[in-house]
């Protein structure tokens, strides 16, 4: 099942006009490969497909168990590691207590994302161990630490605290933008400054003679990806056989999210970062559409009394400050909570370092602060918008927020065109 590094193309076009019947199977093969391999695994999905798929996957997973969000369980991993080394510290999020990772349902979601991304990256021949020098690793360390603090102060992460929280009608969701947006901008400026400084040293006139990069002929990655896919199914079946089908379900939902993120490249860190750094809000605009779809789904469910307090988070000045810290961190680490899980599975060493730094920082929060997330002087109370404005008012408010944010992005983009 090795495959060539051909550019994405229409396989059927190479089949051409053939005698009826004789080459029917070849044409069928060509069309099946075109639809199920080239379109899905070789071409990047359009952003809108990723955004819509993400919204429906999130609604479905909420119906099944919970909404997407990855950092609280990763913070628990950090606390768990401290305890393994004899340092007694409780996990920072009360709803995510210290649990062996394979027995923690929420962690299975994260493992699923890692599996899904790895499968997608391998089948599409995009996996590579990507090393950098010490500067990149230092940035990853700093980014991870900032995200670790940001997630417990905000709380929690970009995807859970902004994306899911907004559609769950939590006031904290829209408010988190006031921190995440400027934070991502500051982090993005740092990256742009580094890139520009390095690019400025390039002198084409003095460039030494070299050889064009060699092209690899074949790759066995699709085979490895398929094998990991089978391993994923086997692990899910083991959980089912132990009467833990919810664990298996979240593992598979995680894998679905992983495939969506990897193939559509719907990156939340770049969505926030690029609005002001490149004056390009394309990714965020699709994310806003995704939130709009999700808001309808979550409202239908919550208005029937289903998990009304789910993803309704404490809100206050800490939402903005935590978001700002998290925003800087996710920019320089190269991904938000989901982003570093995703890049870890694609082979980015920078993401591995950011992940370890992030979980160990967040996992130490109860030692640092003395209380859990949501307790004590730092945190405000959770505000569920329908409790204040009624269901119609709450949904109207969320859609007003989405419209204002969309208009702001468009205003920034139009400003760039005027400048040019």
């Amino acid at each position: 099942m090795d495959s060539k590094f051909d550019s994405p193309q229409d396989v059927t076009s190479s089949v051409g006009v053939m005698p009826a019947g004789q080459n029917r199977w070849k044409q069928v093969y060509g069309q099946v490969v075109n639809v199920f391999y080239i379109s899905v695994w070789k071409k990047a999905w359009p952003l809108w497909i990723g955004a819509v798929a993400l919204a429906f996957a999130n609604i479905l997973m909420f119906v099944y168990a919970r909404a997407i969000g990855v950092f609280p369980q990763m913070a628990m991993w950090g606390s768990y590691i401290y305890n393994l080394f004899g340092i007694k510290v409780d996990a920072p999020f009360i709803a995510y207590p210290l649990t062996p990772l394979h027995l923690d349902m929420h962690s299975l979601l994260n493992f699923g994302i890692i599996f899904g991304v790895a499968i997608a990256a391998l089948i599409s021949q995009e996996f590579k161990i990507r090393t950098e020098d010490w500067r990149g690793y230092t940035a990853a360390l700093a980014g991870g630490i900032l995200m670790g603090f940001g997630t417990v102060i905000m709380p929690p992460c970009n995807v859970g605290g902004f994306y899911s929280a907004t559609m769950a009608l939590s006031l904290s969701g829209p408010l988190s933008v006031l921190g995440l947006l400027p934070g991502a901008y500051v982090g993005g400026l740092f990256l742009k400054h580094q890139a520009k400084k390095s690019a400025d040293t390039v002198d084409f006139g003095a460039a030494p003679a070299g050889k064009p990069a060699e092209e690899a002929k074949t790759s066995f990655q699709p085979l490895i990806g398929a094998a990991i896919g089978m391993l994923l199914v086997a692990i899910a079946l083991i959980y089912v056989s132990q009467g833990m089908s919810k664990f298996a379900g979240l593992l598979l939902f995680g894998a679905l999210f992983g495939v969506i993120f990897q193939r559509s490249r719907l990156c939340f860190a770049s969505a926030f970062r690029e609005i002001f750094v490149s004056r390009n809000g394309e990714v965020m605009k699709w994310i806003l559409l995704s939130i709009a779809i999700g808001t309808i789904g979550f409202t239908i469910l919550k208005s029937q009394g289903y998990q009304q307090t789910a993803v309704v988070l404490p809100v206050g000045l800490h939402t903005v400050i935590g978001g700002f810290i998290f925003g800087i961190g996710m920019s320089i680490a190269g991904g938000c909570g989901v982003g570093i899980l995703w890049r870890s599975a694609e082979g980015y060493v920078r993401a591995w370092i950011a992940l370890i730094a992030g979980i160990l920082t967040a996992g130490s929060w109860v030692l640092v602060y003395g209380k859990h997330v949501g307790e004590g002087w730092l945190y405000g109370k959770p505000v569920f918008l329908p409790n204040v404005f009624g269901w119609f008012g709450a949904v109207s408010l969320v859609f007003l927020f989405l419209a204002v944010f969309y208009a702001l992005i468009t205003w920034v983009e139009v400003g760039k065109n005027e400048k040019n």
Partner: protein
Amino acid sequence: MRKIKASKIGNNHYQVDMRGWVCPYPKYAVESLVKKLGDGYRMDLLVDCPSATDDVPKVARAMGCEVPEVTQIGNGEWRVVIEK
């Protein structure tokens, strides 16, 4: 400061190796690189982050360049050809 490796691989033809630079570095660097490139010159930019295969051509085209080719040359590696 980290160096970006550039080499001359033909007449009016350079190769810039940004493999090992995570996104969004290639996207941010390409603006400066294109400005340095002479008119009529061609630059093969080697990248190993998937998003760059979309981001880099957009920036280059916005600067008036042609991007005739984006080719996968290995596992997780691409060549983006930019003509000014």
